[in-house]
Every structure is written in structure tokens, then in C-alpha cells.
């Protein structure tokens, strides 16, 4: 009840609830002592639709019993569980704690299943059909939103099925990427590269690295400016996994292909984030997920179940 700054509304709610319940009991008690008066033929005298008459029959006593039971239930509930204003109930129950307990229970139940895989190397886990199926479900729930259901990504989200890895495609590196996340940082280089013509020429040089269509004259003018890029992308433009600098000499264009896209990237830079998963997934889940992701580009395909 942190929504309230004072205790007034809390007591207001609690008092209304309790008075309401007690008023029900009082009403029941008062009406139980009252007699209702009807006609000699045991009708109330009310007639509808020509001949439909209302009988003056008493309600069965067990109904009163049910009513009292609901009152007892209500009061016990309010004693045990939160409901009366800020009172947390004698069991101090909360939906958050309930959720946490259920997660713990579920994880404990799943532990024997994962235990088998934990002892195995990622490459061996990848061959296990059961692990593959678990990995696929984990991928669909936690990865497919960005990387796509087929793991081939889209603009800004890397393709996980090819051999082009920004941060390394070994099981250890994949596990690291999943657990801790990654930040790809391309700083804005306009100030270093020079004029917009310089950037355009540089773009053509970058295109030439992968043998993409380009203007070789402009590329020639752009080449000297590549020195500013070589610190991360390497002199030959083949990238550097240690800092997550992409290979510019292949035909994988994560953030868009062509002169305009490259100029924009040099001009504005880019920060691209892969969020860390270690707080959402358990270590054993990440282990199985790593094997699934690894298997996508290393076709030691597990028999699909």
C-alpha cells in the first residue's frame, strides 16, 4: 500500500470491509427473527400475468448456513491474506513471493533434466535431440524476437546461422555473448575523416574491400582516409573480434549496404546492444541455449525430434 502517504485510506478501506461483513450478519439476524405475513393460502397476494401467484415460502435453513460460512470464510481470508487496507495478513502472502517460489520449484523440477547436459561439452549437447528441442524453445522465447524465428536476423540484428561472427563463434564466446550481452560501438568519425567528399570516397573504398560495385577512382581517393578506421577494423578491413569491429571485406552488411548507408555510419556512428541474459536464464539453460545457437552455424545437426 505504498500508494498512500498516510494511514487514513488504509483504515478507511479496512473499516468499510469489516463493517460491511458485520452488517450482513446483522441483517441476517434481524430478518431471521422477523415473520412475514401472507394470505391464508400461503401466497403473498402478488399476482402477475393473470394467474401467476407468488408463494410465501421460507428460505431453507441450510441457505442461512451457507451465508454464515461465506462470512466466516471472508473473515478468515482477511485475517490470513492481504485485503484489509495495508494489513499484510498473518501469512504475509504476496504474489511476487508466490511467483518466486514457483520459479524455484520449477527450476528444481527441471534440474535433473539439465544435469545431464551440464556435464557435457557444448558440441556434444548440440547432438542431443532433447537438448536441441529445449534449446529451440528457449531460443523462440528469448532470442527470436530480434534474431528472428529462423535465427537469420535482420537489419541491426545479426544472422546467427552464418560463419560471420562479430564477437567470435566458439562455444565459449557464444556463451559469453548470451550471458553478459554485448555492446557494439562505432564512434562518429566525421571529424577525423574530413569533408563529406572525403567520406563519400571512403565509402567507395570500403565497398571495394568486399568487391562490391564501386567507383574505383573515388575508392582510390578514399584509401588514405581508411587509416582512421584501421585502428578497429584492421588495415585490411577484416575487423577485430576483440572489440566487436565487423569484417568489412565480406558481403555481410548488418546495418545496411551501399554508399549512403556507409556514409551515414561514418558520419553518425552507431551503438548496438545485445542485452545480457544471465539474470533471466539459469546457467544450465544458457548452456543448452549456447549449444543450440552454436549448432545453427555448425551443421553437426542433431536429429530433429
Amino acid at each position, binding site marked *: 500500500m505504498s500508494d498512500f502517504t498516510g494511514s487514513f485510506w488504509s483504515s478507511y478501506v479496512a473499516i468499510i470491509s469489516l463493517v460491511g461483513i458485520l452488517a450482513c450478519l446483522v441483517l441476517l439476524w434481524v*430478518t431471521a427473527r422477523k*415473520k412475514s405475513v401472507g394470505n391464508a393460502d*400461503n401466497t403473498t397476494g402478488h399476482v402477475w400475468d393473470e394467474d401467476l401467484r407468488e408463494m410465501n415460502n*421460507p428460505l431453507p435453513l*441450510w*441457505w442461512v448456513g451457507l451465508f454464515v460460512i461465506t462470512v466466516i470464510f471472508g473473515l478468515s481470508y482477511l485475517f490470513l491474506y492481504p485485503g484489509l487496507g495495508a494489513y499484510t495478513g498473518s501469512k504475509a502472502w504476496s504474489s511476487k513471493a508466490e511467483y518466486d517460489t514457483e520459479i524455484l520449484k520449477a527450476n528444481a523440477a527441471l534440474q535433473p533434466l539439465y544435469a545431464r547436459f551440464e556435464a557435457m561439452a557444448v558440441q556434444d549437447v548440440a547432438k542431443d535431440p532433447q537438448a536441441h528441442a529445449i534449446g529451440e524453445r528457449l531460443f523462440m522465447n528469448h532470442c527470436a524476437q*530480434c534474431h528472428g524465428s*529462423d535465427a537469420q*536476423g535482420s*537489419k541491426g540484428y545479426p544472422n546467427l546461422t552464418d560463419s560471420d561472427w562479430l564477437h567470435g563463434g566458439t562455444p565459449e564466446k557464444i556463451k559469453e555473448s548470451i550471458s553478459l550481452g554485448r555492446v557494439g560501438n562505432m564512434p562518429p568519425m566525421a571529424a577525423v575523416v574530413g569533408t563529406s567528399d572525403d567520406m563519400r570516397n571512403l565509402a567507395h573504398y570500403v565497398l571495394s574491400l568486399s568487391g562490391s560495385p564501386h567507383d574505383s577512382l573515388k575508392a582510390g581517393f578514399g584509401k588514405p582516409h581508411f587509416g582512421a578506421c584501421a585502428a578497429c577494423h584492421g588495415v585490411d578491413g577484416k575487423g577485430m573480434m576483440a572489440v566487436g569491429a565487423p569484417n568489412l571485406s565480406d558481403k555481410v552488411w548488418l546495418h545496411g549496404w551501399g554508399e549512403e548507408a556507409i556514409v551515414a555510419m561514418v558520419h553518425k556512428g552507431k551503438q548496438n546492444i545485445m542485452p545480457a541474459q544471465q539474470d533471466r536464464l539459469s546457467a544450465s539453460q544458457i548452456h543448452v541455449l549456447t549449444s543450440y545457437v552454436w549448432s545453427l552455424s555448425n551443421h553437426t545437426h542433431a536429429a530433429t525430434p
Partner: protein
Amino acid sequence: MSPQNSDRKVIPIHTADESPSSAFLYAATPKIYPRTVQGVFAYWRWVGVFITQLVFYGLPWLEWGQRQAVLFDLGARRFYVLGLVLYPQDFIYLTGLLVVSALSLFLFTAVAGRLWCGYACPQTVYSEIFMYIERQIEGDRSARMKLDAGAYSLEKIVKKTYKHIVWLGFSIWTGFTFVGYFTPIHELGMAFLQTRMGSWEVFWVFFYGFATYGNAGFMREQVCKFMCPYARFQSAMFDHDTLIVTYDQQRGEPRGHRPHSVSLAESGLGACIDCNLCVQVCPTGIDIRQGLQYECIGCGACADVCNGVMDKMGYARGLVRYTTQNALRHGWSTTTLLKRFFRPRVVVYTSILWTLILVLGFSLMLRTPMRVDVVKDRGMPRITQNGNLENVYRLQLMNATEELQQLHLQVRGPEGMNIESEANFELGPALSRWVAVRVSVPYGSLSEGSHKIWFDIENETQTLRVTEASVFLVPR
């Protein structure tokens, strides 16, 4: 106030027979001891009991091929009904079945009153069975009343214990059968005997059993009078041409006892000899001679017992009988009464009911035992290295047959559209599977925006064919 008004006396107006009665708003309900009755309606009620219970207790034991014929597997979300394998996506059929049931209730009630209540409702049926057991152990009405009124004796304790043991055994068997619709009953039987049922199975066996025991053993007519909503709204289906169990007041009144030797004409009385048997046999404890009452479940017990009395007295049968209010008022013959069956209300109910049954039947017959759901990836469409624009979809393939299926997937849409990923899938019996599918067009061949496409999925023999629509997005 003016002086003329002040000395005016207010004279209360009473109708001649009014002497007020008063009662507490709540009162313990007197226990009802229905007397055994034999006759044509009792016979039909037992037919109802046998049919409904043979189906209920027998169905879970039927086998269909390698599996239970009727099984609602909630865990796996598969519902097996004879040859059908239903998915949760087939829920519409259950809706259809419920609508058909509701309309049947309307129709039967409009024609002949609370037939459902009197002959087929589980509350009636189980009460009938429980009362039969009670009668075998404790005897008929007077014996039971005497036993209850008497002090606790060895005989009373033995009889009561015996009755409750039989009732409880029957109830648990009922609960067990109920759970057998949701858990394979053969395995459940073994688990039950070895006391190793799952906790939810135990809960439902005993909960359903307890409900049967409580409702059929103790609550009985109270359920119909104070709890059941269907009992209430069936009255709204009645009209003056509905067949209801009715006392023929013109023939019966004035009622009175008379010596057997005096003939009906000589006695100067009506046909009702006021023997009160119709009240004694009534499972809800009402007097049918007071006219149509909401408590009447239309079981016809009073009609049966009265016919017996009329036979003994040598009077014509049918002092209490199924007839309509109009027929009684106008003295119609049976033919005239039956002609009123073809009134608009009944004709409308009948035609809607048959239309629905046919639609439901045909749609079940023509149903393709395979389902496909298409879920488009929410990610951006992608441009590939070889100059294609790709959209990704996830397809849930659901096999509603009990054979292995080899499925082939094709896409229909704008020119040049292709499936880039695997298009052949194997799908095990009654299994479902999600597959990721990549669809491509040459980049620039389509205008920006959304384009309709269709996935065609068919099996090798082309006996199964499903088409599902989706869209292909081209970004701006």
C-alpha cells in the same frame, strides 16, 4: 385538514377468506419421503436412468483402435471422440454442441414441459438411483419414516450404516468414472487399486463423488427448488399449449372420501377421492391439485399413482395427466391438442435446431483433420546478400489424424515468391509442431506495404490440404 374529513372513518377492506398466515423467513426444510410408484412414466424414467448411466459409466471403457474411444487429455490438449482427434482450436464444435443442447431443451420444454428434469437430468437420475438403494435397505415411505422417527436401535444403526456405505461406494465409482474421461481409465483403475493416483485425480474422484453423495443422497429436490437455474428458466418456455402434468379440477372436484360401494354418480363428489397418494409420491413434496407450480419437475409420478387409484375405483384414468392448459380449458380432444404442436414457437425451434444439427454434422464430416496456424515474425523484413527481400513466419502444423504425415508446403502470392527454407515436414500421429519458414521475393519487385499471400500445405497422398492466409510486408 377540513372538519368534514376529520370524522371520516377508514374502513379496511378484506376479502372474505382472508385470514393472514405468517411464517419465518427461514425454516428447516422438512424431509421428503417419496413413496414408490409404478406406471408408465416411472417406467420411462427408469429407461432414462439406464440409457444415461450406461453411456456415462460405459463410455470411458470403450476402446478405439489402440486408445480409449472418448478421452479428454487436458495435459496434452487433445480431445479424442471416437474417430475424431480435436485440438483446442476446434472449440467451435463444443460451442455448436452446447447451442444444439440448449435449443433441444427449449424445444422439448415448449412441447412437453420439463422432460429433461423429469427423465434425464443427473440430479433426477442419481436421486432415483439413491432412492432405489435406500428403499432396498430401509423399505418404502412408511418404513423409512418410522425408522427415522424411532430411537437409535441396533437395526437403525445397521441399516443406516449399510445405506451410507452403499451410497458412498456408488458415489466414488461415479467420481472415478468422471475422472476416467480425462485420464486413461484402465491406468486410473490400476492406480486406484494400488492407491497411487495423482493428487488431482484423488481430488476430483472424491470431489465429484462427494457432490454425487450430497446432491443425490441429501439435497435432492432442494437442488431443483433453490439452486438450479435451468429449472427456473424452463418456465419461460411454457405456454398454454405446453403439455404439463395437470390435475383435472373439473373432473376431480369436489374431492372427498367415499365408501367403495357408492358409485361416482351417487356420491355427488368429483373423481378425486382425496387419498393424498399424489402428494406422497411427489419427489418435491407438492400437491399437484393446486395447479402448476414451479417446484414440479414434470416426473409424472402423481399421474402414475392416480391412474392406479382410478383403476381400483373403477373410474376412468387420467384425473392427473399430461395435458395442456388450453386443452383443459376448452375441453379439447387429443387430436385437437396434438394439432397445437405445429404452433409457430415449436416450428421455429425445430427448424433452427435441425439447421444447426445439419450444419454441425456436415462441418464435422467435411472437416480436414489437419490445422495450420501462421504467425508472422514481428521483426523487420530482411534484405539478403543475393538481393532478395525476406519475411519470416512460424507455422504451427497440427496433425489431427492418427497416422504419420509427410507434408509439403507451398506459398502462393505475387510473382517470384519463393520458400527459401525447408518445405517438407514430417508430422507424427496427433502431434503438432512449429516450423520457421522463410519467404522471399526479388528485392524491388513488390510495391511498399502489405501483400496478401497464402500457404498451401498438403500431404503426400493429397488427402489433406489446408490453405492459410497471411501477409508479406515490404518496408518503406
